[in-house]
């Protein structure tokens, strides 16, 4: 890469960073909590774990590893390619987001439904006869056609049975639309 290209990339990168940060201000109106609130609206009361789940368990430690196209799986039906959504700068931004420190817990005050959180009691973190959910802190980025995209992991467990999915959403008008889903963990 030439020095000029590097400088251009850096400037663009900072610019995009500013834009992203502009709408990533903490709070209920941030796109991350907008997506979280979209997800929790369909969940039962007392069913969502307060701690976010990490991406490391699934070896999602880079944009490349996050891209479903690069993952080998016995179940994948569609070779979904994140490169078809995100340009080079946006990929760089996602890379930075993946390596940055993220919130460890859901901020209750930012939830539209506060009673959705599962009250943990002691060291046991499951209850009989109840479906429990865990999500990761969403990765949000602008992408194709200036749409906003969100990538999140969601786990659904009922007693000794459960599974985890990678979900990719696109914000259309005022709502988040699920555009890709892949099973990434089975219990």
């Amino acid at each position, binding site marked *: 890469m030439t020095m000029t290209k590097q400088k251009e990339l850096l400037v663009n990168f900072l610019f995009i960073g500013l834009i992203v940060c502009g709408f990533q201000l903490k709070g209920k109106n941030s796109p991350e909590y907008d997506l979280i609130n979209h997800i929790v609206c369909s969940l039962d009361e007392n069913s969502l*774990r307060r*701690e976010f*789940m990490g991406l490391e*368990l*699934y*070896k999602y430690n880079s944009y490349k590893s996050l891209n479903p196209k690069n*993952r*080998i*799986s*016995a*179940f994948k039906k569609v070779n979904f390619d994140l490169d078809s959504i995100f340009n080079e700068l946006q990929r760089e931004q996602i890379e930075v987001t993946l390596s940055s420190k993220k919130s460890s817990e859901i901020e209750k005050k930012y939830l539209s439904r506060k009673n959705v959180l*599962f009250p943990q009691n002691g*060291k*046991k*973190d*499951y*209850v*009989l*006869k*109840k*479906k*429990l*959910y*865990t999500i990761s802190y969403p990765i949000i980025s602008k992408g194709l056609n200036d749409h906003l995209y969100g990538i999140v992991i969601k*786990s659904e*467990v*009922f*007693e*000794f*049975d*459960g*599974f*985890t999915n990678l979900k990719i959403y696109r914000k259309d008008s005022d709502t988040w639309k699920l555009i890709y889903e892949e*099973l*990434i*963990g*089975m*219990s």
Partner: protein
Amino acid sequence: MKVREWFEENKTNLRLPERGSNYRADAQELILPFFEKEPDWDKFHHYFFPDGREVYELSLENAEKYFPKSFIDSFPNQDVSKIMIQNIMFIKNSNGDRFDPLIARYYPSDEYSKNKMKGIAYNRINEYWSGRVDIFTYDEHHFVGFLVNDGKIEETVRYGQEENINARTLGDCRSVTREVVWTSGSPGPISEDPLGLGVTFHSIIIAETICTGSMGELPPTGTLYIDGEYYYEFGTGNEGCSDCNYIIPIISNPGSIILNQLTNPCASSIFKQLMKASILKSSIGNQNQTNAVVQLLQNANEFDFIVQNSNIASGANAQTIPGIFFNTQTGKNEVTIVFDNDYLENATKLSIARTFLHEAIHAYLLYIGYIDPAGSFNLGLVNYGASNGYTNANEIHHNFMAQYVQAIGYSLFTWNNYYGGTSNIPRSYFDEISWGGLSAKDIQNGQYVWYDSFKALIEVESERLRVHQNITNENDDNDQAKGTPC
């Protein structure tokens, strides 16, 4: 393959130069007859030493084989030539213009290790494998040996007297004499064919120096001795010699495949016990039945199955990750099983063993789906899901897995007999708790929603609830549990 072309071109020149007129005269040294090397080019291991040098390791067929006598004694009345593995390692020289071959011979010391010989290579000794690894130069001078116990190098062996070993190993070394044997493929007199295998046995008593530990990188900096004779200096930057067509490469220690990455000691020991129990024969029932579930994974040599623990999703005991990870160091695909820390803290040993077997079947089905997607087994699984209207792969696995319940129950029963430490558990109890993860999938209006297979095979609702409660008891290690705490 480039290495093959190189070998065909150079194989006749791969000899160590003679070092003095009495080089082969020392009665203590072992120089085997020069066996013709016929690598099997169809299958090979490809990996890298820690310093980045590329290695190809291939099976090496010989009509004649070499054995430590103790190895023969470990497997009485068995054809040991079929138990050992003999490979040739082609180590790419740092200059990139040639390969330096070595011969690796692997000798298991127990039945478990004998069963883990398939797929063995210098960088992937199974973590519970015990035995001896001997490295020879291409022209059959003994270079170094390793005595391995449960995947760990406990001692290193060099042929010859102690004074010929590098000074830094002195103090931790002992000298022994032992018998080594090699065979020739043609039948000899009965006196030379004690096992009646139709081959001629040759025997020699040699002296060995056995030192504690791995000795580090081999050969170390300093003087290298082969069969107790000076060869040349290492670590000077001027290794080799003008008349050398073959240079003994520096090698790292043999590497283990660490599949068991559990940091919870109790869970780790259960995993090890299940691995060891997998080769045990039943003392009742079908004499030939082995622990089929763990055997599934043990036979899946193309993949590594990693077991870890972590904080995973709320409520989950464990997860198998379908995303297959390619490990560039081992050159193998990996499937990972992750146990939840909270579960390991609270469940009985029996429950943890049960969960491992359950996840092992997930891992095996994933492996089949990847390795042979168009094969009859995987297509059968896909058709099974389609014909029953299952859209979620988890649901397909959990309904399909019902046919393994008895195998899980049998494996648990065997494990408990040897390691579980709990007596008076009825045989049927092991089958019942094997339904763990395959019984309830949801609740509606206060009633469990059962998996179809569970519902079909256990027809009475009160029985389903009883079985499900037994699973819960073991999961929570409550007063009703029959297993012991982990």
